[in-house]
């Protein structure tokens, strides 16, 4: 697998040298996009190969190649390991002439890649990772954080549920950077809304059996059990919570990060009624539906998640900035991206703040009952829209050194 990727990479590089056209400002005459994602484990469906598809679609739709600028896309699997991800990022930047890394689900890996990107003066379009630290205390002039973050999820779901009367919480948290950030941000949102956190448990990532943790959650008598995890961990905990009669017993479940692919995997029978926050749903308007109709056949029928949408939109905006600047100098491009307002078919009009946070509305969604759904992928009812200026952490609260 890796050997194959290396060979493909080598071919791609050879191709680059063969091409040899002259664009003075763009290094080695080609913009090289590296999609670094989870290609083999729990986040594959919500990002993975679909992120590569989305990046390719963004390049196509930008029309940049028709204007004589060559774009190449390479991809690799970080295996959810920070050391593996860092090694790939370094190799890409140092020897493979990659200009921009995009996606990187898994906050642990993303924080490492963000630091490397800053050191090398390149660009990191963070879409898959959730940790709000990427635009907070670990913010970087070279990183833009698209789609979602833990503060936004916590604020959307935590505040909404607490205000509806779910004012005592127990957390089941994935024990790494993302889960811890999500728990911290949600706790703050709950307390601000007048609720209380009774306790929590830190489960190792990629855990199979959640029954021990669910039993502890049950014993806590909290009204809401917050699942500060993602991907397969979330689906397994929701499925097993149903088995242990958590919801029937009067407690409710709050999925803090749930993706469309998770609902597809669970089936509506198990997932119905679940409330959570998203920033994108394929069935929102004609433009999102059109994108989805083009995307799904290229990714085994999977309809785009907010990560796929974020990869598409961020790459599109990046290419616009490169063209406007006529340069692919990383630090300058990110500054340009922040200066230009964003406009794309999936997230609409938006902006990128000085701390790197992309601002757009968020949506509180509820999973449909099986009877309400017209078929596969028809899963959400949008219950509320959180306007862009309220969806994300206020600029001053993040502790990002770039904010003065």
């Amino acid at each position: 697998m890796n050997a194959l990727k290396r060979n493909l990479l080598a071919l791609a590089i050879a191709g680059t040298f063969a091409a040899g056209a002259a664009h003075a400002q763009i290094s080695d005459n080609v913009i090289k996009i590296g999609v670094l994602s989870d290609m083999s484990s729990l986040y594959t469906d919500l990002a993975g190969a679909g992120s590569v598809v989305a990046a390719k679609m963004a390049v196509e739709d930008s029309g940049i190649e028709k204007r004589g600028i060559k774009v190449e896309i390479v991809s690799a699997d970080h295996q959810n390991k920070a050391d593996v991800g860092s090694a790939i990022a370094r190799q890409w930047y140092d020897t493979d002439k990659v200009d921009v890394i995009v996606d990187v689900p898994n906050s642990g890996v993303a924080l490492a890649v963000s630091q490397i990107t800053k050191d090398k003066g390149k660009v990191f379009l963070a879409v898959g990772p959730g940790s709000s630290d990427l635009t907070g205390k670990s913010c970087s002039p070279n990183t833009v954080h698209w789609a979602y973050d833990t503060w936004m999820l916590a604020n959307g779901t935590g505040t909404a549920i607490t205000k509806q009367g779910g004012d005592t919480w127990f957390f089941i948290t994935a024990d790494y950077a993302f889960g811890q950030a999500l728990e911290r941000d949600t706790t703050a949102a709950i307390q601000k809304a007048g609720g209380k956190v009774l306790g929590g448990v830190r489960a190792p990532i990629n855990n199979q059996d959640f029954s021990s943790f669910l039993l502890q959650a049950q014993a806590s008598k909290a009204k809401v059990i917050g699942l500060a995890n993602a991907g397969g961990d979330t689906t397994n905990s929701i499925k097993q919570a149903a088995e242990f009669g958590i919801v029937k017993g009067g407690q409710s479940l709050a999925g803090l990060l749930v993706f469309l692919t998770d609902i597809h995997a669970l089936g509506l029978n198990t997932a119905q009624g679940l409330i959570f926050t998203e920033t994108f749903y394929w069935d929102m308007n004609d433009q999102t539906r059109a994108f989805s109709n083009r995307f799904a056949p290229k990714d085994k029928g999977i309809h785009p998640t907010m990560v796929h949408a974020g990869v598409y939109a961020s790459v599109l905006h990046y290419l616009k900035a490169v063209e406007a600047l006529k340069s692919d100098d990383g630090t300058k491009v990110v500054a340009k991206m922040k200066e230009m307002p964003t406009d794309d078919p999936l997230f609409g009009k938006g902006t990128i703040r000085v701390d790197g946070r992309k601002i757009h509305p968020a949506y509180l969604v509820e999973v449909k009952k099986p009877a309400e759904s017209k078929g596969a992928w028809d899963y959400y009812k949008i219950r509320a829209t959180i306007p862009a200026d309220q969806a994300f952490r206020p600029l001053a609260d993040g502790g990002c050194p770039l904010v003065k």
Partner: protein
Amino acid sequence: MQALFGQLLIGLINGAFYAMLSLGLAVIFGLLNIINFTHGAQYMMGAFVAWFLLTKLSIGYWWALLLAPIVVGALGVVIERTMLARLYKLDHLYGLLLTFGLALVIQGLFRNEFGSSGLPYQIPSELTGGINLGFMFLPVYRAWVIVASLIVCLSTWYVIERTKLGSYLRAATENPALVQAFGINVPRMVTLTFGFGVALAALAGVMAAPIYQVNPLMGADIIIVVFAVVVIGGMGSIMGSILTGFGLGVVEGLTKYFYPEASNTVIFVVMVIVLMFRPAGLFGKER
């Protein structure tokens, strides 16, 4: 205190899966001397066959319990006849490498086809709901898992250790040539034993399908733990693997209560300690 009882019971349930899986491994290693790394993939295939039967052919859980082990066991027989049979004369390592490679191939193919989020499989309607035991809520399905696994484990142990068929098998491990001389078809017996071990993995897969997602990676996640169980129990020891499976399930369950962050490493810590003091495992014989 009440919470502790609950955790003990949960531990036993998880132990039931460890026991069933490590039992299959122990049977295969004990009688064929093959370290079967495809075991996790075969467990996963069991779950997938159940899913396929239900969604494509509308054949429910109970039939799947019978059919999935037969289908996957038959595939195991094919693997044994076409590939493993060529390696018996060589070192253990070759079998290990072959099965490890096969496991990666099978998993990769399934992941490519079905993605990584998994597929839904509902608990059969007869086994939904739960019983309130006072100290915990016990889902009926989990109770069924523990009972079924005990029956399967103990009957396997009985057949191998206490019946005539079992004695042939054990004799064939010690001295195949002599057993063959008595007119027993040893290669066929070996093939069927491998098929049986694989079928056990598939059975565990069917039983796991309603609890976990039917997921191409479900085997990879559990197989390493199961190998640790087998090593701790003593390679090849049937009763050892059953007792260790249940025992380590309990140890893991308690860790999830007292120090959850360590729950995915505790089994390996136990393995290191056991290997330092009893290199052949708790129930194994030094060779």
